[in-house]
């Protein structure tokens, strides 16, 4: 048994108890879990129960299903896993979550739960400390053409890649502009924003507009290769 909790931003918008029947996830009515938004396919994904385990399955969606930041077609779920579909995060948990704060509509399951008294452990100091120290670390692995890979931490809201002296990462080439592209923190995401004549490719396809960077994705600017990482790590 398990629960899935659906978050949009930091708000818990919905939650469901999982049984043995398939839970379908999609944009249109008729799905067990309806997620509104153009980035969600009509029938996007499903959670299936097989031999005592739950699996997340991509039903041929346009934008894919990500499990803990990695794209998956079918994968076994374990507690605390995070499924990302468009701008929703679905957490697979052993217990129900707190009712979402003001403004969000909730499932009736919550109300029936609220008159039961439960005990809860006060979080011990060490666990607290561990949680506080877990932060997302963003960095790029940049190759310089000779096979040497350099790790560059992204600490600013904007990083410029180009020929200019002010660029944080340099590229060469006769016709390369001063700034070929920027990497921008936009809210909780990072975006690759190409400039004119920047010759920017993301996952081997040329791009012209801002493109969200996913953990582990590769891109190139004027032929220089980069790999982007955005993952939870423990800082000292």
């Amino acid at each position, binding site marked *: 048994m398990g629960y899935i909790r659906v978050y949009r*931003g*930091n708000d818990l918008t919905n939650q469901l108890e999982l049984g043995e029947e398939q839970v379908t996830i999609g944009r249109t009515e008729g799905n067990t879990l309806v997620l509104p938004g153009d980035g969600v396919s009509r029938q996007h994904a499903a959670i299936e129960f097989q031999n005592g385990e739950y699996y997340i399955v991509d039903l041929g969606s346009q934008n894919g299903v990500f499990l803990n930041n990695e794209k998956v077609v079918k994968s076994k779920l374990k*507690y605390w896993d995070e499924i990302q579909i468009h701008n929703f995060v679905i957490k697979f948990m052993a217990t129900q979550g707190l009712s979402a704060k*003001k*403004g969000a509509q909730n499932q009736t399951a919550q109300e029936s739960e609220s008159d039961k008294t*439960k005990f*809860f452990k006060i979080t011990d100091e060490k666990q607290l400390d561990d949680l506080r120290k877990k932060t997302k670390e963003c960095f790029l692995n940049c190759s310089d053409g000779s096979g040497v890979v350099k790790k560059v931490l992204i600490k600013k809201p904007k990083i410029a890649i180009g020929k200019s002296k002010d660029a944080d990462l340099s590229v060469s080439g006769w016709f390369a502009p001063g700034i070929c592209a920027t990497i921008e923190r936009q*809210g909780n995401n990072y975006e690759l924003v190409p400039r004119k004549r920047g010759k920017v490719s993301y996952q081997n396809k040329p791009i012209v507009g801002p493109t969200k960077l996913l953990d582990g994705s590769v891109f190139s600017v004027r032929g220089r290769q980069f790999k982007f990482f955005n993952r939870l790590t423990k800082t000292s």
Partner: protein
Amino acid sequence: MPWITAADSDIGAREEQQDRYLVVRNDRGSSQLLVVADGAGGHTMGAMAAQTAITHVRENVTGLWLSEDPLTFLKDLIVECNQRVLALSDTDLACSTIVMVFMRSDELFWGHVGDSRFYLIRNGEVISQTRDHSVGELQQRQGDEATGAIKAAENELYMCLGGLSDITPELDSSAVREGDSLLLCSDGLWGQTDMLRTFSELSNTGISQEGLAKLVAQSISAAKIAKPENGDNITLIASQFLEKPTLIRRLLSAIFKT
């Protein structure tokens, strides 16, 4: 300054106003710092804690305008505020939350301790926000929660100014785009009112200074009406990023200059 900003505060249904806020710009008007502090403690100590933090920020803000590493600057500033507030309390506890955001062209840098919040809004949706340093929020993240019992502990802060000698402010940054809005508020606002409405109203791009001030006043009075008995102090600062002035606005300003 590509930002228009409006701020207001209300005592709510309490006997004392323990919220404090600050809006300060550099001389050139190119950068801005917004701060909200929500004090807690008995016998005027809460208000004093919030005021002490705000005063310390105001007195030390100049270094921020030219700082090459705004996040570290904000972190140090919050840690110093903690020392100041700690020095206040003798027998009575004095503590305060603090949340601040530094705006420089199209970049934002923010930091906080406690449960006063920062929200970054794009097209009516929150694209980034601070996480409260409260027991409830932490347990929610841990999945170690129960329904009834937590409600009582939800407001307990595990990190604030004046509580511990060693604090770790949470920091973050983002770039912004035309029409993005931000909010700073005390829990009197987010705890007593429907924030979704405020978010959607804030998304009307091209809002005027007067329009924004009106919106801030309306949000505060909505929160006040929602809890007429023992309602908390309410503070809200709202800002919208409008980089490109419209052609008409540019023409008008050119005409009035000559």
